[in-house]
């Protein structure tokens, strides 16, 4: 019988294919592991603040929440807050609780129906417009949405003036 493939060539093929298989598994695994940050879904950062019922129509409410920032295996928690208001119970607005002038926390003056910053006696209207004082722009707004009767926000100011 004529041997078309010599024993030596056959064994070389076997060795080459086994090496290729091992190399493929190790190389593929390593590549996937190394490149995995590129495929990781970005955390949008929506934070649950509370029930929509905590915000009544007309008067703004300051709600506190815990912000959890993930950094690899670490989670950094910070307490933070925002002013919420609604005119119809469905659409909500969230204001950054810092005055746009120098970052002082402001409060709601129920009699004048205005936000009042104590640092330089600035006042803002209920929709965030500057009524008087030094602030250069209206109150900063946070993105806000309602999911199953729960308020969620991203505590990062949108560009000023945008809703």
């Amino acid at each position, binding site marked *: 019988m004529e041997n078309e493939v010599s024993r030596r060539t056959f064994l070389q093929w076997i060795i080459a294919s086994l090496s290729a298989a091992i190399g493929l598994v*190790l190389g593929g695994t*390593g590549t*996937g592991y*190394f490149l995995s940050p590129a495929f990781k879904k970005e955390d949008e950062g929506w934070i649950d603040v509370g029930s929509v019922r905590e915000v009544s129509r007309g008067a703004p409410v300051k709600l506190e929440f815990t912000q959890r920032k993930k950094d*690899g*295996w670490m989670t950094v928690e910070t307490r933070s807050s925002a002013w919420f208001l609604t005119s119809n119970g469905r659409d909500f607005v969230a204001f950054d609780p810092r005055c746009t002038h120098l970052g002082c926390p402001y409060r709601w003056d129920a009699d004048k129906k205005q936000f009042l910053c104590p640092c330089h006696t600035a006042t803002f209207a209920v929709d965030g417009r500057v009524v008087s004082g030094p602030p250069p722009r209206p109150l900063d707004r946070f993105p806000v949405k309602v999911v199953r009767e729960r308020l969620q926000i991203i505590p990062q100011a949108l560009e000023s003036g945008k809703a």
Partner: protein
Amino acid sequence: MIAKFLSELDERTGWKKVKEALLDRRIPEASGWQAWLYTLGSASLLLFAVQALTGMLLAMNYVPSPDHAYDSIRYIEREVLLGSFVRGLHHWGASFMVVIVALHMLRVFFMGAYKYPREGTWMAGVALFMVVMGFSFTGYLLPWDQKAYWATAVGTNIAAQVPTLGPYIGKVLKGGDVLGALTLSRFYAFHVLVLPALLILFVGLHLFLVVWHGISETPRRKDQ
């Protein structure tokens, strides 16, 4: 085209002669299960390659500090793509390494392959065995779980039993008076910097001598 490229490359690097010397060596006639005994050295080398690759990947996410060691490994296990597989390879590869290296050493010992003129190869091999033991001892601490901590406590305490010098050896191993942050970073430095450098050095020497002397014959009875 490929053949032309390879011959052009050969003119400039002489790789064909290198390949002949490394891979097309003459080796002793062996058959059956005895032939498998001659694969243990190559198996150790493959395991080292796997350990080096997976180790490099793990080091991208691992932090050798008591605050972060355990959590960073849990992150590798749960969040990194293929992380548990890569760590599994490193974990099992480590155990296999000790087993294969021990078997390789027994093969050489029982076949008398360490004798003249191969004493240098044997001594480089013994150094490699020590380095592998060092890898095992230092790597075992890195997960920083209960098993790791107490195994290293036992290991360093044993070393501290040496007469007179014992307490100093213990302190040097631990990097201080107690087993803690300093021990972990010290063990990590040994595991990823010192020992790999030594290993590469001795593997180079070992392999050069293996190629230089060739593989020794299987010992036979006189009447055979």
